[in-house]
């Protein structure tokens, strides 16, 4: 029998062994296939396309100072401000906030109109009980929108009043124009100077009248907010949070499963003692490693296929790119993730240690791969850590392929494959050391 044939037989030993061991656990397979799908489904269900509404209490300590304009301050049109009620006692409102009976306390400034008339800004104080920095940012944003809304409505009211006053002024102006025209008839024919002055006066009055007509013809909201903004994504599609996170969730799950499987593989064999048999048998470290890599890669590709099928066809996660780009990116991700797993397996002394390392890596991937926080926000030196994780490459590639319809950026593909190849080499050297004569 040729050496090549024997080489293939030896590799196949691990392929069939690992796959049989996995397939012998139907519950595990069901968990692996439907678990991630269920997580994505529940994620979509748990985070509908709605912003959080805040139960709001307005504190108006001196209602009389609002000159009957209470509603201007306490009837917010912002959908984020809900279940509004008004309280005169600030301490009571804050106590309710502490008891989580309300989410926001907006204290209306005392005598706000008088303050403005005195050429000063009237300041609203907004209390909240949040600790999450993202929620605090959200509250700040809601508070800013609220104040902008109050300012806008105040200006609109003033504008409407101004337009009404302009109507009265226009009546007087039209009377003045008529009188000027009458006056023009009384000017003697030879008095050209006076006639010219009356003409100028009539023109000025007519111009002001026209301007007032324009002023009155415009809507108050346009006058107060003459400019607005409209954002549009280049692809023309606005993704929901579920759609946006789906590629990242797939990447994170595949990386974690690959690492967990591979990390337990060799450490278990070392612990069981069968490694001693491998040392005596005519099997080499490279044959062992290739056999294990291929078996897990094959299984993980099948798993990725099922998860992707369920995500795209059942959860309707968008897939705008080419499938062969997707397959290439996923295989690269799995190859490198398995490399990480085998490295863990070779440096761990026990199963527990291997599981702990895998969990640490999952945690690092959640925080540093751009899963939650945009990588562009990260401090530059820390990006080295981010780009040493397979998930970072995987998330970028799958987002580009699935959401943008692009191909995987060659730099990313080369980067992840380079890490994978490096890990394969390191793993081979470590396993060879484990299997060599002591």
């Amino acid at each position, binding site marked *: 029998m040729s050496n090549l044939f024997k080489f293939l*037989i030896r590799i196949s*030993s*691990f392929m069939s062994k690992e796959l049989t061991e996995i397939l012998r656990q139907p519950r595990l397979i069901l968990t692996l296939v439907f678990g991630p799908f269920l997580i994505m489904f529940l994620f979509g269900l748990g985070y509908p396309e709605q912003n959080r509404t805040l139960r709001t209490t307005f504190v108006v300590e001196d209602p009389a100072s609002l000159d009957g304009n209470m509603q201007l301050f306490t009837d917010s049109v912002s959908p984020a401000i809900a279940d509004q009620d008004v309280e005169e006692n600030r301490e009571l409102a804050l106590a309710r906030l502490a008891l989580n009976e309300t989410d926001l306390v907006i204290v209306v400034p005392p005598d706000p109109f008088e303050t403005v008339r005195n050429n000063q800004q009237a300041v609203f104080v907004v209390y909240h009980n949040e600790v999450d920095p993202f929620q605090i940012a959200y509250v700040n944003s809601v508070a800013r929108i609220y104040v902008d809304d109050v300012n806008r409505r105040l200006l609109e009211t003033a504008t409407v009043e101004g337009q009404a006053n302009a109507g009265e002024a226009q009546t007087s102006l039209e009377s003045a124009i008529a009188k000027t025209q009458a006056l023009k008839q009384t000017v003697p024919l030879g008095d050209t100077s006076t006639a010219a002055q009356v003409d100028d006066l009539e023109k000025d009055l007519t111009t002001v009248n026209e301007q007032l007509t324009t002023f009155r013809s415009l809507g108050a909201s346009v006058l107060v907010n003459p400019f607005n903004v409209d954002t549009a994504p280049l692809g023309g599609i606005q993704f929901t949070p579920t759609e946006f996170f789906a590629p990242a969730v797939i990447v994170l799950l595949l990386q974690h499963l690959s690492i967990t499987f591979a990390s337990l593989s060799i450490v278990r064999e070392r612990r*069981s003692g069968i490694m001693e*048999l491998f*040392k*005596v*048998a005519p*099997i080499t470290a490279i044959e062992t490693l290739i056999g294990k890599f291929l078996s897990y890669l094959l299984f993980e590709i099948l798993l990725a296929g099922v998860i992707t099928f369920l995500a795209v066809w059942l959860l309707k996660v968008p897939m705008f790119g080419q499938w062969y780009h997707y397959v290439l990116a996923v295989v690269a991700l799995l190859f490198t993730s398995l490399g990480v797993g085998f490295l863990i397996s070779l440096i761990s002394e026990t199963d527990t240690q291997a599981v702990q390392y895998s969990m640490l890596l999952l945690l690092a991937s959640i925080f540093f791969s751009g899963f939650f926080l945009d990588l562009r926000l990260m401090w530059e030196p820390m990006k080295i850590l981010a780009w040493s994780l397979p998930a970072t490459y995987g998330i970028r590639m799958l987002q580009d392929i699935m959401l943008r319809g692009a191909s995987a950026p060659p730099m990313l593909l080369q980067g992840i494959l380079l890490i994978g190849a490096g890990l394969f080499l390191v793993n081979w050297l470590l396993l060879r050391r484990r299997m060599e004569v*002591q």
Partner: protein
Amino acid sequence: MNSTRNQNVSGDVVDAHELTKTFGEEIAVNSLTMKVPRGTIFGFIGPSGCGKTTTVRLLTGIHRPTSGELSVLGKSPVDFSKTDREKIGYLIQNFVLYPELTVWENLNFAASFYGVGLFTRHNHLNKLLDFVELKEDKGKLASALSGGMKRRLSLAATMVHNPELLFLDEPTAGIDPLLRRKFWEYFKELQNQGHTLFVTTQYVGEAAYCDLVGVMYDGRLLMVETPEGLRHKAYGGDIVGIKATEWIRYENRKKLEDLPFVRGKVKVVNDQQIEIIVDEANTAIPALVEASKAARVNIETIEQISPPFDDVFVKLIEKEDANVQPV
């Protein structure tokens, strides 16, 4: 199983000279010198922790000797090629196969990593399962097997590539006496097929099944002998038991003791029964019969006595300890 090996090949499959292995300050194997002839069952006997497994690991190339010379199948084990390794089978002390695989799958896995061809494998594995009497259980998960069945599966996995030389590290440890006997029947069968077996055991009684026995104690190989040779060495000769029809008087015992082939003093079992250590039982028994007649001792029975190997071993160790006692 009909995978009979060529039995004409002779020579020693293992040749160790002054073989030593240390782990730091601890000497695990100390100046071990021995030869294992091809086609024999070589028993390696000694108490737990005496260096048996380390010796097997040296012979299989897992450990590199600290000093000394070692040749297994004509080569140093640390330089074994793949082809050399295909000639060796190694049964590890503990069950190390995969509990989640069936008997057949485990065997198939072992066959693959030894590079056994795919076309003949099916028949070969079936014959092996037949040999270790596990054919009916080939669909069972290894985790569902009893301790004895696991050992038989391990033995089959060791045999899967039909190796020339088998290293079996305590194959009978922890299993019941009936199954132990069965295992030795397997080993005899393997020997008949031309395999050489190097078997370590803590059960001194199993020395009887071996062609040669190496006695290991505290990292040192005390001796390599045939089972009978071991008894001889332990007691300084063969033991002959005499039972008389009447009381054997002191002067008559003395007469027997003074015979030239008798070693040491006569051991009195009771008034009518004595045990005598002689150079060679076969030649001594007729002479003892004659001498007894002359001394007017009526013999009821006279026979060679084979003391249990446990006693032999204890005797040997006592002798060894006495030899190394500080002066």
